[in-house]
């Protein structure tokens, strides 16, 4: 895969640029500030872990970065597009082409087989030969024998591997992962995170991950700590993964 080199060659702007991001939600009686003045940049090919306590605002941040939601104030620029200015459908289009996701609860469609789950984003993005690409990826994640199993017939680790295959299927420029090992035991979690990091490296994808798992966070090139909605940039500045 040399797409990464192509991209980095042609475009040296950051993959993600966030400035002064603030997010508030209105409750019945008052307004709750979830994120306050977050600014950051993530370069292409970088891997970044967002860490923080429960309720610190990291999942909200992930949702805003991925364009699943729009911020109250501030801008998010994803791969050159200011997503807060895009309509919901334009954001969906952007996601289909450039973004992949891995979730804590796998989020596979229960009625589709492993193969079909992986094919789905390919078809939505209108790519050619979706089945072949899906097979390759499933084989890559070690599930070549289980193409036609439905999620219910797979273990949690296997389901997350299908989800990872799906996330890389459409050759995303950036991958968002929300607690990818949160629902797995240590050993399975270890195997899944190995797979995620390996694939990420192979494909040259930018990775943004929310996690509680310190080991996993340490494997990312950079860690962003978030506390009470504010970014507390750690002492270690960004750098490539070691």
């Amino acid at each position: 895969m040399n797409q990464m080199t192509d991209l980095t060659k042609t475009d040296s702007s950051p993959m993600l640029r966030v400035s002064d991001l603030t997010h508030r939600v209105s409750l019945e009686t008052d307004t709750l500030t979830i994120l306050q003045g977050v600014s950051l940049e993530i370069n292409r090919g970088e891997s970044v872990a967002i860490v923080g306590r429960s309720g610190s605002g990291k999942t909200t941040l992930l949702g805003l970065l991925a364009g699943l939601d729009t911020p109250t104030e501030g801008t998010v620029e994803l791969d050159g597009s200011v997503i807060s200015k895009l309509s919901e459908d334009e954001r969906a289009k952007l996601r289909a082409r450039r973004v992949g996701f891995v979730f804590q609860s796998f989020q596979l469609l229960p009625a589709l087989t492993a193969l079909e789950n992986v094919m789905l984003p390919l078809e939505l993005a209108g790519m050619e030969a979706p089945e072949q690409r899906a097979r390759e990826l499933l084989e890559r994640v070690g599930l070549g024998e289980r193409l036609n199993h439905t999620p219910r017939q797979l273990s949690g680790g296997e389901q997350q591997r299908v989800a990872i295959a799906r996330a890389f299927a459409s050759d995303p420029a950036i991958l968002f992962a929300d607690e990818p090992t949160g629902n797995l035991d240590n050993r399975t979690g270890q195997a899944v995170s190995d797979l995620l990091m390996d694939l990420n490296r192979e494909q040259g994808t930018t990775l943004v991950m929310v996690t509680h798992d310190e080991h996993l966070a340490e494997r990312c090139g950079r860690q962003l700590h978030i506390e009470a909605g504010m970014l507390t940039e750690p002492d270690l500045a960004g750098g490539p993964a070691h």
Partner: protein
Amino acid sequence: MGASKKLMSVSRDWRERDVRVVLVALIIAVATVATIALFASQLQRTLVSSASSFLAADRQLEAENGRPIPLEWLEDAQSRGLETGRMVEFSTMVFGESGFQLVSVKAVSDEYPLRGEIEIQPGAEEPRQIVSQGPGPGQVWVNPRLLRLLELDIGDTLEVGNLKLEITRLLIREPDGGFRLSSLAPRVMMHVDDVAATGVVQEGSRVEYVYLFAGDEGVLDDYYQWLEPQLEPSHEWEGVRDGETFSRSLERAERFLLLGGSLAVLLAAVAVAVASRQYALSQRDTVALLKTLGLSSRGIGELYLRRLSLWGIVGVLGGLAVALPLFWLLVRLLSDVLERPVDFYLDPAALTPALLTALVSLFAFAYPPIRRLRNVPAMRVLRSQPGETGREAIPDILLAVVAVFGLVWMYAGELMLVAALLGGLVLLLGVLGLLGWGMVALLRRVKGGGNSWRLALVGLYRHRRASMAQMAVFAMTLMLAATLVLVRSSLLDDWQAQLPDDAPNHFLINIAPDAVDDVEEFWATRGAPLETLYPMVRGRLTELNGEPVKEAVSKDERVGALNRELNLTWMAELPEDNRIVDGQWFGPGETEGVSVEAELAEKLGLQLGDRLTFTIGSSKVTEPVTSIRTVQWDSMKPNFYMAFPPDGGLTDMPATWITAFYLNTDNKLALNDFSRQFPTVSVLEIDHIIDRIQQIVQQVTQAIEAILALILAAALVVMAAVVSATLRDRQREGALLRTLGGQQSLLARSTMLEFALLGFFAGTLGVIAAEGAVYALQAGMFEGTFRWHWQVMLPVPLIAAVLLALFGRWQLRPVLSVSPMLLLRRLE
């Protein structure tokens, strides 16, 4: 198959429980509506054709003014493709070798009868035959009684006026034998072309020209539209629905079918609405994921619209696949009941309501919650978002109410019915809301009882929103079903009450005052006691408050009773089945006044105190209206428009006596002795008419029961849909309870108890509401009297409780039979 295609495939959908419920509800909706519409249309056709034979045609036009109708009226009918026929009816003396007799002649054209058949006997000892044409020219068919009276035989000659006719057949039964007291003399049937040669019918003679019409209902209606402005007051257009004896049964049956159809529509709508809302809720995660993967809201909209259309196709095809065999079975059943083959009549127009029902169900009930899926935020994949509050469903509910209104209106065509049903439902929902909330709140305070009892109450309370919704739907469903059962049984009771097995089936008319005692004795000794005897005086109503009655009454009102002689009577006691609706019945010793039948009084606009003048022979009698009463015309007993008190206005008028009695078939021969002993008394045999009525009642009853079964099936599906709606939660809870150490038996008992309570409350509310609805319907549509139905009110809540308890247990069986571990994983 591509994944996105598969996302929309029905076979994939079928694996999802909620979709199964939507599809099954849709299939049942289409099947029920299609079956009812098809069968109603078939029944209508069969009933009309069997009832038409009572007119010997689909319509009759009677000219009671002694003049034939203009020729072009008939020609116009023929040019429209209608079949026509003619009859002339008159009374005259006929002569045989040994004497003469007043007879009632019916002269018929070759086409007679257009509907129905004539039953004849070639000779006294020969078997009866069914024929479809009357006597030819030169021939005459006669009632067997006439042969006895004139001591004649087959082959002898009968003189009618100037014409000698050969007696070729005994006339046993004519299709339009009717039941008119004006035709008491023995019947003689001849060819209409012979009438002129008899010389009996002259200008101004009392003669009735009757014209028969048969053909397509629409053409008949068009023809009548054209004809009506030209009719004179003495012309009477009669269709099956206008006739007195059968029309009521027919109308009630038809209304019942319509009611059933409407309820089916309502039930279907509820099932589809409930299941699709549930489906939409279950799809929110999928939609959020699809959006995250890059599908636009438009794409989401299209995806679900396409899916909905597929459901529609499956619903319609599936529904028809169920409806057609069912319809075939029903028609077979109908043939069995009628003991004759019934032609299949697959009315394509009857499928329209089914298609429309599918469309409206999908787009008014299923689509709105599914449409809102477009608004599900993609963010939901990361964090569960607040679900729907129910407030956004208010426009859906409004749309659904309008749609139901339109659907039921289209289906039943009766605004009154629609308004009654919807009014009842809205009221019910309001009352239910209050009652249900109160009950749930009360339940929360209930203390004590065993574990399972407490768990059941906690369950009801914890699911109070779902419990309320379920209770509302159950109560509504039970109300609709109970309404139907109640209306059915009161319909059948009414019919049974009208025609008990020993209902009078013979009339004795024209009994001379001095022969009354002998006649009574004659039948008493033969075990066939007579009903009450009434004196009968024939007279015309000629003046109203001193004004000629035809001027006093608006011309638009064609009142048949004004055109012919009425049978007047006097009586001391009000007949059992009559009811006074205004004024007072005659007190003892009272001699003034007249009591008028209610419908006639309304048509004439009569008030208490109006003075009526009757012309009887050459004398006139004037009396004030002192009471207005209803009469059971279909009771098969003598009934009178006008009743005077004993020693009142009719005293000294020439009267004969009339009565009715029940004679079983084995005793029929006694009639011959009777005719010999009392030659002047006319016997009117109406046993075959009663047989026919009973047959129709049976037919209609079967149809009603078949449709009732269909509707109850629909009701069950609604319940299943609603219970399934909370199934997932319940299963999850059950699994959790078991994981935490709850025993299977405890879980089973508490679930059954919870559902039993739900069923009991819903049943109680539903039955109370049903009583209200039945009261409204009885008062407004079925003309019955209202009473409480304890026999339904007590068992329904209990049955509902038991059924729901079993149903709940059944639905929970995966929780009870599988290890909690496996279950929790499945439910993830």
